[in-house]
């Protein structure tokens, strides 16, 4: 019976795609959520003993919820309801708002499926727009596509019981909507702090591009300027203790520049990338200046321990591991560590058309780009009878691997790395380990390479990792191996099946574009911070105020006359001024028309990705 209801609803909800319907069908479970009857006979779900509606009268509760909302009733607002539950509140909302102006987002597809199964057909109107089982950034992307239908803004309507069950999800979703609303008016000013050197340096640039893609303003604090000094210290004295102390002083100095720069640019957020110089003292200073701080620890928490000294001092601490590592972070005072995996930058990691010469130079049956870690040295010795190339640095004393090592182990730029990924028939992606032989049986997080190879539309064989299946569909989007024998077996098989390789690689690329770009990660990180601190709003650092513009242009100028109406409105973007002029009436004066013209050029530049 209830399955009939589910099918009837799926038939009726015309806005659901076939994939959405399939997901809901697959997610339906008889035993989850637990469904009980309220006193008025209505079905009420609960998760972990938390009920999603009143157990007395869900409809009366929903009416009360609706009465507490402030709806602006304009036709260009899209209402986003965070949490479906069994939909009593949604039904009430749809009494006063047309369905095309409502989108309901439900974190848990099983709850959504259960709602459709337990409510009578017709409970939800045919035009209901439902997004279920998607991560917050992906759900937001779907919302943006709906916005293309002419909605000017989103208004988030919180379903408190759903947020009570999944606080991280719904707070992040609300946060994402908040930060992206701000993005259309100049966005947040983010000071992005790079490390002095190392693997997270290119990631810093990908993050910068993502911040700008999302409409925020990013200032890069490039600490590579300190790297020669750091190298100098390494060679200064053989006394390791002295070297460590001097390094500490250098880190302190570099960290102090963070405070100076953050105050100068009036940053809303200081985002420090792994190994970026920072000290608890600097973080306290920034907190006193009301600047939010975040750190993205794109490292293996068991291999590097410096997080222990700093994690507790950040407003957001993002990591690429879950489970025990999150508990360890909490034990050192980091209240809310957040799992944020690595990603790819489709601007850099993309399919390339390579010339015959490039294919010759970079191509091979198998290759690996990466540093010469212990486990790789051992594992790759078992591939030398194949057409196998090793690219990358730190392969000193490579021994038998010398025959496969390219360019004597020189460092490979990100641009060339992408060419190698593209030119290689099978990219061998073995996560590094300093103490396991071959495949690390306890490996969990995914390295950037996993996402980057996929984003290139290239084929890879990757060692088994605990988080692989939640990021890619095994077999259809990615192929894994547990040891050398299986890797060789897969390699032999897939070298003979170029069409299968191409199909798997293409599916992996689509998955990355859909869920695993740096735009997704940065959006999620900003959403997490805004979700935790709802009063976090941009202060307009670096943007001029009307008063400054009037003073600059001269009080008698036409620009001064135009800016008069913006006095007291604080920092202004070109978009702010132009939108206000667009909404006005009557003839434009020349300066107003020029501001609109300039803004159109800016929009064009954004669209073409040249700004």
């Amino acid at each position, binding site marked *: 019976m209830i399955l009939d209801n589910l099918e009837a609803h799926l038939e009726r909800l015309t806005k659901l795609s076939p994939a959405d319907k399939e997901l809901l069908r697959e997610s339906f479970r008889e035993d989850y959520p637990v469904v009980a009857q309220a006193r008025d006979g209505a079905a009420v779900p609960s998760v972990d003993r938390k009920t999603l509606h009143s157990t007395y009268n869900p409809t009366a509760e929903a009416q009360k919820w609706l009465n507490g909302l402030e709806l602006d009733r304009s036709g260009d607002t899209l209402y986003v309801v965070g949490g479906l539950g069994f939909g009593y509140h949604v039904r009430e909302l749809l009494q006063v708002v047309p369905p095309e102006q409502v989108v309901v987002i439900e974190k848990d597809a099983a709850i959504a499926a259960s709602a459709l199964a337990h409510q009578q057909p017709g409970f939800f109107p045919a035009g209901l727009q439902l997004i279920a089982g998607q991560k917050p950034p992906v759900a937001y992307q779907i919302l943006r596509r709906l916005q293309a239908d002419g909605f000017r803004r989103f208004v988030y309507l919180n379903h408190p019981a759903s947020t009570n069950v999944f606080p991280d999800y719904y707070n992040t979703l609300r946060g994402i909507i908040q930060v992206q609303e701000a993005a259309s008016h100049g966005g947040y000013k983010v000071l992005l702090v790079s490390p002095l050197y190392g693997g997270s340096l290119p990631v810093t640039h990908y993050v910068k591009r993502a911040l700008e893609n999302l409409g925020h303003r990013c200032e890069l604090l490039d600490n590579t300027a300190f790297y020669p000094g750091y190298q100098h210290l390494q060679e200064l004295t053989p006394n390791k203790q002295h070297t460590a102390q001097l390094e500490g002083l250098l880190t302190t100095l570099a960290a102090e520049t963070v405070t100076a720069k953050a105050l100068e640019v009036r940053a809303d957020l200081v985002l420090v990338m792994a190994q970026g110089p920072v000290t608890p003292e600097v973080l306290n200073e920034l907190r006193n200046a009301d600047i939010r701080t975040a750190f993205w620890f794109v490292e293996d928490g068991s291999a590097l321990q410096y997080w222990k000294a700093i994690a507790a001092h950040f407003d957001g601490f993002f990591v690429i591991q879950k489970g025990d590592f999150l508990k360890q972070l909490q034990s050192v005072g980091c209240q809310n560590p957040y799992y944020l995996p690595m990603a790819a930058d489709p601007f850099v990691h993309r399919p390339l058309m390579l010339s015959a010469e490039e294919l010759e130079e970079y191509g091979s049956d198998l290759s690996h780009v990466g540093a010469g870690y212990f486990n790789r040295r051992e594992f790759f010795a078992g591939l030398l009878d194949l057409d196998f190339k090793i690219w990358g640095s730190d392969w000193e004393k490579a021994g038998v691997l010398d025959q496969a090592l390219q360019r004597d182990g020189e460092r490979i730029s990100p641009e060339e790395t992408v060419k190698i990924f593209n030119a290689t028939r099978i990219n061998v992606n073995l996560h590094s380990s300093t103490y396991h032989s071959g495949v690390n049986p306890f490996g969990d997080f995914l390295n950037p390479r996993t996402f980057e190879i996929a984003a290139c539309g290239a084929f890879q064989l990757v060692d088994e990792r605990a988080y692989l299946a939640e990021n890619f569909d095994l077999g259809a989007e990615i192929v894994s191996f547990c040891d050398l024998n299986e890797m060789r077996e897969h390699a032999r098989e897939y070298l003979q099946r170029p069409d299968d390789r191409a199909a798997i690689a293409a599916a992996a690329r689509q998955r990355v574009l859909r869920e695993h770009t740096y735009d997704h990660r940065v959006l999620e990180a900003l959403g997490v911070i805004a979700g935790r601190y709802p009063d976090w709003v941009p202060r307009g650092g670096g943007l001029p105020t009307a008063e400054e513009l009037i003073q600059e242009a001269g009080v008698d100028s036409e*620009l001064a006359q135009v800016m008069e109406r913006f006095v007291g409105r604080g920092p202004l973007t070109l978009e702010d001024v132009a939108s206000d002029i667009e909404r006005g009436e009557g003839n434009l004066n020349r300066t107003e028309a020029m501001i609109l013209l300039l803004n159109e050029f800016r929009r*064009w530049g954004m669209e073409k990705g040249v700004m």
Partner: protein
Amino acid sequence: MGQPLVIALLRLGDLLQSFPAITDLNRTNGEAGVTLLAPKDLAPLGKLHPAVNKTIPFNGDELLSALLGDGNWSDRGLSYLDGLLKDIAVDAPGLVANLTHTSFSANLAGMVPHARVRGRSYTRELGSVSHGVWSCYFFSLLSSRACNPFNLVDIFRDIAGRMPGDKTRLRLSEQQRQTARDWLAPAGQKLKVAVALGANHPLRCWPVSHWIDTLKLIRQQTNCTFVLLGGSEEKPNAIDVVNNLKRDCIDLSGQTDLPELAAVIDQCELFLGHDSGPLHLAAMLGKTAVGVYLAMASAWETAAYHPGSVAIEPDIHCHPCPESSTCREPLCHRKITPAAVAKAALAVIQGEHLQPGNDCFYRISRMASDGRLDLAGDRRSSDKARRFWRNFAVPVFEPDRAARGIEPVFNGDLEDIQIQLRNFKNELLELIDATLQDVRSRLSTAWVSYHDPLSAKHQELLALYPLFRPLLDFYHLEVQMGNGKSMLNPLEKTLNAQETLLQRTKNLQQVVEDTNGTRAVSELMHQSLRTKPYARLGVTA
């Protein structure tokens, strides 16, 4: 009023394809000359067009750099635009033809005081306005070009205002001609074939090894010199060609500015290349071009605007691919072979009839009686929709001009299309009725929002009636823009657009019926003539 202004903030190929429109505009205005606004790096092209008296260079890089950073817009950005507008105002243009599809150019067109606009303009009072049906048509192509049968040159000409007269003859200085002659002197009296190896997208570029093989095949059959052209980025490929051909090659890649490039092509007898700026330059110089149309390049849209030119397209279903294509192993590069390109080039050189292609289509540019470019040569099954609209777009969208000669180029099943049209119209009527009912039901509510049932079914209708896509895309555009009726609310815009859509559908129905009727009569007559050969002369047996 001063001379007209043409806003052509376009890429090289598109800018060259706007040249005949500039000629038309000049004729409209008593041949008093035209001002051209073009990207700074292409501004020298203005000197080649005899009607262009003045070229205003647009420095997009400077404006972009003014906008990067937080607060520079008020200072550098506005100053730059102030200077640009003053430059434009010097000639007080009374007519502006905007041939660019950006909102920026529309705003710019709307800012020229007291000027009539052709193309799109934006003002706060009227919003976005597409002046004339062809301007609207141009924008509707942004949704899909699958049905478009018109060459970009013709669309530009229709936007600017088509005028009869001789074709544009580009203006080359004696010095430029002499420089070209000096460069080409080693070729002596041999036939000179200009070859441009580049294009603006890697997917559009045929591998250089294919070009080498092609040129070798041509040289086996004819005594000629190849003149290699292109920017400095083409140099490595040009060197590759020279090294392989060993003799009869003049490498001018990276050496010519735009006017010199024109002068060199002008000295050659044939042009070979991709769908690219140099190919359109050759066409404007009246040179026959043989072009390799790969990836997103489509002969229907950008075949060389010179009769007898050949566009070679691959015989694969995915061609032309979308602009966003990231195809990694493009089949189109392999489907067109050196032998196929050499065959086309030799047919042009030797003045022979070009036999149908293997694995590729030869599309031959020809001028139709309506003055627009058409494609002769090989036909492909996907032409059906384009052929249909080649015949019926003008009667539907511009019925006043439809009387001028239409060629019976469509050989599709008109009876089947008549049935489809009837169903389509009925569906429209139902949706319009739903709109009106919805309006009545909402009159008592406070909601000003409005959801158009016809727009909601846009995708569904497209899937059911792909042939009528231009009607639906036009409709979508008119609902979105209101076309100069910004004072109308969304509902009024929708009702207006629905009325227009219905009228156009009726126009189409009428003209299809008429054509079908005419064809039936014509077929009967042909049959009758076959049986009685002398009947037409009135001779009795």
